[in-house]
């Protein structure tokens, strides 16, 4: 409830100055987009879809409402319907915030705000804004997107002109982040009977620097995020399989504790004329501890990276390739310890409002994107994934 209050207060404060102005003065804008995806895999079912049979269960629709009552103040809200296999199928609040920009050197944004970590985090859900159908899953797993995208609190941002050395953009953020009970992180627990009825949440702080160098188009950056210890209630549900109590459901309440974690992230991008290159490296380490229920603590120590490039073939057609890899040093040897994904991608824009995408993934390893229920005969170590997508935006 407190989180909704933060968003409501941000909007209310931002809109107190709206009343006396005409609609035209307020510069009210409505934008939106919708996408429909189709997935087909040669082996394992992926992202909780029946993709080995071909699955159209990937749909998103977004509506964005914004107003700018004064040159320095903006308010806005964005809602999303998201469906991907067993994920989503409901409307959620992407962000709801008020933004006051004193000048290019200093601005503040508060409410439910996008978390500006890494190279793509702020825009990883904005399909019309990039060529890829799926961003590199090693760092931007779509099944855990909602938990990483935004936080309740604020962001301070600005740009410092370094004169002869280019420009330095800074962002600093703090607040509370929530990972919902249906997030991809928990799929294996949920399928084994452990649910998180109200998700898990905790405080976060972080900062990011983007250095726009004197070489036009070259940006180098780094971000650092610190998550304090988080906790949330869990319920372990067990169906007695045999004996006099066969069929009886036993539920045991408990707690999930997530240790403190620090996430360093380094990235760079070069974009000029028809070409774009980018790369990113991230490290994530910590552990999960279950209080009151059976599973043993789980450690994770994941190194993830990707490198990508794209080329504009014509004004409407763009093609690209990336390689993405993650590797969990805390997991036992085998395909579940890593995932390596070579991807070929293309996008064609029919006009200002409609586009189509096609993408082929060559995935080796099983650490990202799979679940047990839809792969009851076990996971094969490699899979090819084909994605077709069409989108409209306004």
């Amino acid at each position, binding site marked *: 409830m407190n989180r909704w209050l933060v968003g409501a207060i941000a909007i209310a404060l931002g809109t107190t100055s709206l009343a006396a102005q005409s609609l035209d003065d307020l510069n009210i804008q409505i934008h939106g987009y919708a996408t429909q995806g189709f997935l087909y895999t040669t082996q394992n079912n992926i992202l909780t879809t029946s993709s080995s049979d071909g699955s159209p269960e990937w749909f998103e629709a977004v509506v964005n409402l914004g107003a700018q009552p004064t040159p320095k103040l903006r308010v806005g809200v964005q809602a999303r319907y998201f469906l991907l296999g067993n994920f989503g199928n409901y409307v959620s609040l992407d962000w709801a915030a008020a*933004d006051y920009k004193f000048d290019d050197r200093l601005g503040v944004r508060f409410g439910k705000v996008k978390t500006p970590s890494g190279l793509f985090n702020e*825009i990883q859900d904005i399909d019309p804004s990039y060529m890829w159908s799926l961003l590199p899953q090693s760092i931007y797993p779509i099944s855990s997107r909602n938990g990483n995208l935004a936080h309740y609190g604020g962001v301070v941002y600005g740009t410092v002109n370094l004169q002869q050395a280019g420009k330095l953009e800074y962002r600093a953020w703090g607040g509370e982040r929530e990972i919902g009970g249906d997030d991809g992180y928990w799929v294996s627990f949920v399928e084994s009977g452990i649910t998180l009825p109200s998700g898990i949440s905790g405080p976060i702080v972080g900062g990011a620097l983007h250095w726009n160098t004197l070489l036009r188009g070259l940006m180098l950056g780094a971000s650092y995020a610190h998550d304090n210890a988080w906790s949330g209630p869990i319920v372990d549900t067990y169906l007695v399989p045999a004996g006099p109590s066969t069929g009886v459901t036993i539920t045991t309440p408990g707690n999930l504790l997530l240790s403190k974690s620090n996430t360093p992230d380094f990235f760079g991008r070069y974009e000029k004329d028809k070409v774009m290159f980018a790369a990113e490296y991230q490290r994530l380490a910590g552990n999960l501890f279950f209080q009151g229920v059976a599973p043993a603590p789980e450690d994770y120590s994941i190194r993830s990276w990707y490198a990508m490039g794209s080329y504009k073939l014509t004004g409407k057609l763009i093609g690209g390739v990336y390689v993405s890899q993650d590797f969990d040093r805390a997991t036992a040897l085998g395909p579940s310890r890593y995932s390596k994904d070579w991807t070929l991608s293309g996008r064609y824009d029919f006009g200002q409002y409609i586009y189509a995408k096609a993408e082929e993934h060559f995935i080796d390893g099983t650490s990202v994107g799979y679940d047990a229920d839809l792969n009851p005969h076990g996971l094969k170590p490699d899979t090819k994934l084909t994605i077709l997508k069409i989108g409209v935006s306004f």
Partner: protein
Amino acid sequence: MKKIILVFLLAAASLIFTTHAQAQAIIIANPSVKSADVSKNDLRDVFTGAASSLKDGSKVTPVLLKQGGAHEEFLSEFIGKNDTAFRATWQSLVFSGQASMPKSLDSEAAMVEYVARNAGAIGYISKATPHEGVKVLAVR
């Protein structure tokens, strides 16, 4: 027959060059903007949402044309992106809550009128379009 082909080719060439001349874009601003000129880097920053003021401190608000020769010429000459990539940049900002979409106008006459009326407005038109009430910024 050769004469007909020659006339046709000359007419086509003339049309192409005329179109190009008409599409040559110039930068216009409200007279409240202090600068008399603007660098390409400043223009690129302002029209991609990376900055809201020019190097001399003048606060400016970008205004766009929805389409047309001047729009294409402006993007190609000063921003270095085509229309698709340019709109994708703004969609990133709008859908992540970082900016509002600049005002987009249907015609160059509407652009001149809007820029003349609104303090800080900066836009672009074809060189041949009448532009009373606005100042033309030289591009460095």
